[in-house]
């Protein structure tokens, strides 16, 4: 009888351990429960209140007087040489060529990018760069297939450009040109 009790006890403990493990595994893998999402609210567009900080890029190190940049053109060149360009790696056999590094206003940078928004006030100081590859477009979020087009996604671009915040060194926008 004692052996019977021990066996039964062991089986019972094993069963509960298995049950517990199974329960927690299922809880982890189960469809999460979320409260219902509120319906969208279409508030007026207010760009000036929601400027995006940008992605970390060049480390600022110069003393800030509120006017000048916090890094040098040499810092930008070193950054580009180290990390390459944003669209993807250089095409096989290609070498990165820096065509332009200049500190300009956001309005001027926008003009250099055929009107692309920089996401800063017009007179804000930014750093515009232009590089030559060609570059692969590995990281480009391409268009979408539809009834009329985009079945032919390009795979390389000859030129790239980018704009950095002159005070924080953060990347604000990048793009490619053919």
């Amino acid at each position: 009888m004692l052996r019977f009790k021990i066996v039964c006890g062991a089986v019972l403990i094993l069963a509960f351990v298995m049950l517990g493990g199974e329960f927690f595994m299922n809880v982890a893998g189960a469809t999460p429960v979320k409260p219902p999402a509120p319906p969208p609210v279409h508030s007026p567009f207010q760009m000036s209140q929601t400027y995006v900080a940008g992605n970390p890029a060049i480390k600022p190190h110069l003393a800030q007087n509120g006017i000048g940049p916090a890094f040098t053109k040499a810092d930008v060149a070193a950054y580009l040489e180290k990390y390459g360009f944003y669209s993807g790696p250089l095409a096989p056999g290609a070498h990165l060529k820096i065509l332009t590094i200049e500190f300009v206003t956001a309005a001027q940078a926008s003009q250099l990018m055929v009107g692309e928004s920089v996401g800063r006030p017009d007179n804000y100081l930014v750093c515009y760069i232009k590089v030559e590859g060609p570059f692969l477009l590995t990281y480009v979020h391409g268009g979408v297939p539809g009834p009329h087009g985009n079945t032919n996604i390009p795979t390389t671009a000859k030129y790239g450009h980018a704009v950095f915040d002159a005070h924080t060194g953060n990347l604000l926008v990048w793009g490619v040109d053919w």
Partner: protein
Amino acid sequence: MKIRQPLDLSSCSVFEDRAFTVLFALILFLGSLFIFSGSAFAASTSVMTHAIPLTGYCNDPNPHCYATRTWLGHTGGSSTLINPYGSLNCQSCNGFIDVETWFEDTTDSQCTSTKYGECWVEGGISTWPANDPNSCHQGYDSTCGFWADNRPYGGNYNEHPLYNFGADGVNLVPYLFYITIKNDSGNSSSGSTWDVIVNIYKNGTLVAAPNGQSKSNTMNVNNITIGSELSDSNGSAGTIYFQDNQWMDTSGNFHYQTTTGNNYSTNPPPYGYWVTNPCNCQGNTGGSFDTYDS
């Protein structure tokens, strides 16, 4: 004459026998649950599982792969809620997997003559590989919000960061990502400046409202698309819903989509299907489109 010994009631009572009988029945019952259901709680807690194997379609990062739905028709605005019930994963990828919406002109010659054959404004949530210097968490596989456009007349493709969600595979369940793309200066489908309005909630609290503007983008918008884009066979994603799908009329009023749109998806992965169809019916909120890649 052999005398029968009395039973030892202290070690084997009627009560104990019954207890062990009940115990055995319980163990047998639990065992049968494991055997016949495979999981004791499978039916009650694992509501939805996606165990469809990868097809390998995206072994080559080009072309990209899509699970999408597209509504055709001119409009000056669109809106959707990206509601994650899982994460986006693309560790050690060269490409990415994302969930996003596109607002497009696929017919005007100014756009069909661009390198991509169309103009658009897009925005959503994507993975970023560690070797992409544009990652919102530089040097690490990351999950980031972004918007981008492809413009005519030499404007070409440009991309803007929006938000840092964290590492690749970060739990996106606490988040709601509302995105509206609309004409900045009117309600027409034709325009040159388009507002990208994003509201990001975490655990019910607004944590960011990053906006952008696509300028010098002279589109005449004729498509709204929602869905997932994949450019690396290592990508995977949990269930992520597109809900509150809306379009804007010429008076600037938003309306819920009432049809399921067109399916121009490539072969899976990623996968997409309507969990709830948009309908011209009472209680319609633009449907719920599920994308995933398991």
